[in-house]
């Protein structure tokens, strides 16, 4: 027999103006199992809560219904009060007789009757409530950062500086990402390398950071606080611990004509190489696809010249396993492939290049030592056309979004060009100039006014070569779509930023969701911008959407704070309103028949397989089991279960059926 207490709140006059609160308390006090019922002016006030606590103790209540405002407002308040009085907080329920009753109905008997109905429903529900304890999950205080660009670097340093261990995985032989390829950065024209490389070195030297370059995430298992990550360390074909990074092997390698990815194909590199001079770690790797030894079976020049004998031709990929508590995804972006632009001649004409290649041309450490020279013949271009929105905002190319960074870097390119080639003429074809950001609009204005860049609002129809010049045909839409033809020496396309290659597979490996463009999806576009739908996995930088450097850094620091707050306690506490699979004594074990439909609908991968074995170790039944650390309590599995084997605390089948019956039968 239950001993339930009902407390009806007047909420000043908010409820009592239309609902007869005394009558509600009197009538519901006569319900079976109700031990005590009263009404009070303000239940949420201090004296109101004291009234509640004293009633729990005096009448030895085993369930409480507070009829007041929305549970979305004060459920935590009253549950806390119950806990302070020694009653399990999950034995307290609220009836919403303010937002759902007194405020929306006129003062009459029907309104009071509705309030009674709502209270009765909760009285019957609370009879079926179970005392629950918060779920505690241990936390491994090590974070995995995937990707070593500026976002990954920032996140790793922030987490490591909070005193937590960080494991960083980078796919390339060096960290640094796209930012290491840039010449100068908008809107201050800082040298990109100068601000980035100290950070890269800090990562390599930080006592809390373990860095794995030339490595990829192989698999992720587990859940928030308790992930197990397998990392594939690709063979570098040399012993990193012995190698001193002297670089002799890279100068002696006979294979020297491999297009350099870091220089966007504008330069060459050997088969054993360091991607760029400031690489971290500054140790070479052998590119097995292009190495003469791996192709023809003989050469080994690097092994012969190596003064410390660090080359290991027979080295194999190594798989290591690390336990981590949180994951930050910072895998960055990529730029559109050339085959998207047949009309612009990208890939066909050497002097049509993309923005990243122009960065390398303008970079002091680039293939031309910072002189702007066109790739075809090394001449200094006197007329140069920059094309904004090359792919972006173009439904025909399948990219409907704005890549956000191109307007700014195009203005920067025009400026850099003008600073280096004083008698040159830069043209920019644009759709709109989107320069939202601190000092951004002023920067574009400077490019137009001080550096005399010709901004032409219009798109380009075609580019073709004629007598060593690139003929650019377009229209000026601010001049009544007047056709324009420019004989340019070079064309730079501001190609759209797209999801990094392999982003989709990686998202599936780590179990996070992604959008139609394969960018990783945040849990909420406004209020949870760095969280993913998978608890314990966070996003930083351009893997989420195109972002500039300040935004990537801000997001990375945001993700780092999320990780640090997760690591601030040794145990996670969660509401126990999660699904549970029923268990019964042998030989039934459970109503669950192991169809795993629940697994197929769970958005959180919270359903696991559990094998029941007999004494001989043979599997006699396979059941579903809910991982309490992952379950968010949506209950989709419950509605789907054929055998009603799975149920959810707080909204159990018993509870909801009771509610419906109590509501309809007075």
């Amino acid at each position, binding site marked *: 027999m239950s001993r339930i207490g009902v407390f009806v709140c007047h909420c000043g006059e908010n409820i009592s103006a239309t609902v007869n609160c005394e009558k509600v308390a009197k009538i519901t006090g006569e319900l079976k199992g109700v031990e005590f019922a009263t009404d009070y002016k303000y239940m949420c006030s201090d004296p109101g809560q004291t009234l509640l606590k004293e009633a729990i103790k005096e009448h030895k209540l085993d369930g409480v219904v507070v009829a007041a405002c*929305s*549970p*979305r*407002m004060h459920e935590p308040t009253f549950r806390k009060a119950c806990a302070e009085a020694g009653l399990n907080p999950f034995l307290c329920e609220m009836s*919403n007789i*303010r*937002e*759902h*009753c007194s*405020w*929306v*109905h*006129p003062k009459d008997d*029907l*309104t009071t*009757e*509705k309030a009674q*109905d*709502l209270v009765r*429903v909760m009285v019957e529900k609370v009879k079926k409530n179970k005392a629950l304890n918060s779920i505690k999950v241990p936390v491994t205080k090590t974070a995995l950062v995937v990707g070593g660009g500026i976002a990954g670097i920032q996140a790793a340093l922030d987490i490591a500086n909070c005193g937590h261990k960080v494991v960083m995985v980078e796919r390339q032989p060096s960290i640094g990402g796209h930012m290491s390829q840039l010449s100068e950065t908008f809107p201050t024209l800082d040298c990109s390398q100068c601000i980035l490389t100290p950070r890269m070195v800090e990562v390599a030297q930080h006592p809390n950071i373990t860095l794995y370059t030339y490595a990829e995430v192989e698999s992720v298992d587990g859940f928030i606080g308790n992930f197990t990550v397998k990392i594939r360390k690709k063979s570098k074909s040399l012993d990193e611990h012995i190698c001193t990074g002297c670089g002799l092997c890279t100068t002696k390698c006979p294979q020297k004509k491999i297009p350099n990815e870091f220089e966007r194909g504008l330069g060459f590199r050997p088969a054993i190489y360091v991607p760029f001079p400031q690489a971290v770690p500054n140790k070479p790797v052998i590119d097995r696809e292009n190495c003469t030894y791996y192709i023809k079976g003989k050469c080994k020049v690097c092994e012969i010249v190596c003064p410390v004998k660090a080359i290991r031709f027979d080295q194999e990929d190594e798989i290591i396993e690390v336990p981590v508590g949180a994951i930050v995804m910072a895998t960055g972006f990529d730029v559109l492939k050339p085959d998207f632009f047949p009309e612009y001649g990208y890939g066909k004409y050497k002097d049509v290049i993309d923005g990243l290649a122009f960065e390398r041309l303008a970079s002091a450490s680039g293939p031309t030592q910072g002189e702007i020279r066109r790739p075809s013949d090394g001449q200094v271009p006197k007329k140069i056309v920059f094309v904004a929105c090359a792919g972006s905002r173009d439904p025909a190319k399948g990219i409907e979004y704005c890549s956000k960074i191109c307007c700014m870097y195009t203005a920067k390119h025009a400026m850099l060009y003008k600073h280096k080639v004083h008698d040159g003429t830069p043209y920019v074809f644009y759709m709109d100039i989107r320069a939202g950001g601190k000092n951004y609009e002023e920067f574009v204005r400077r490019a137009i006014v001080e550096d005399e860049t010709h901004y032409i609002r219009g798109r380009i129809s075609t580019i073709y070569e004629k007598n060593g010049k690139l003929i650019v045909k377009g229209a000026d839409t601010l001049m009544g779509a007047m056709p324009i033809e420019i004989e340019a020496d070079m064309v730079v396309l501001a190609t759209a930023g797209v999801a990094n290659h392999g982003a989709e597979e990686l998202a599936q490996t780590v179990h996070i*969701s992604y959008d139609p463009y394969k960018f990783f999806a945040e849990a909420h576009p406004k209020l949870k911008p760095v969280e993913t*739908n998978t608890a314990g996995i966070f996003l930083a930088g351009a893997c989420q959407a195109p972002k500039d450097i300040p935004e990537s850094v801000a997001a990375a620091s945001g993700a780092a704070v999320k990780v640090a707050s997760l690591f601030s306690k040794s145990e996670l506490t969660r509401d126990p*309103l999660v699904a549970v699979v029923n268990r019964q004594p042998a030989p039934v074990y459970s109503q669950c028949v192991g169809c795993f439909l629940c697994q197929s*609908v769970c*958005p*959180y991968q919270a359903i696991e397989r559990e094998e029941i074995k007999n004494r001989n170790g043979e599997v006699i039944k396979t059941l579903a089991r809910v991982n309490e650390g992952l379950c*968010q*309590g*949506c*209950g*989709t599995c*419950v*509605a*789907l279960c054929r055998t*009603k084997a799975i149920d*959810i605390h*707080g*909204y159990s*089948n*018993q509870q*909801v*059926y*009771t*509610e*419906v*019956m109590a*509501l*309809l*039968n007075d």
Partner: protein
Amino acid sequence: MQEFEPKIVAFVCNWCTYAGADLTGTSRIKYSANVKIIRFPCTGRIDFMILMKAFENGADGIIVSGCHPNDCHYSTGNFHARRRWIVFRNLLNFTGIETERIQFSWVSAAEGFKWADVVNNTVKKIKEMGPNENYKKIAVSTLFNEEEIINE
């Protein structure tokens, strides 16, 4: 003769429609008192057998409402509910219960006005349809075994 006052049960999700109904209250928008809300974590949690249970216990109409597609707090729960509703509607047609007695809708946490509209329109429609006598003719007690669940 006294006017027919239908009993209508609303099954709503906690994150969108429940909050939307809270907003209706906060905005003091009036609606009919015939509708009473039962809160679920997500429309995906709503086992449609409970709709049958509501009819069995004398409900004249039912509202099922949750987050708009793509807005689900749990990513995909409302899609499951929508799919389930399509199948369930066919089942209702087969058994001869009027599907018009069930109103399926999306009401977000910002749509206080819409919730009042959904409620008032449903009440108006059910009043026109009259009491749910049809169900009582069709209902066969052996169809339902939820009492067993309750009395466990």
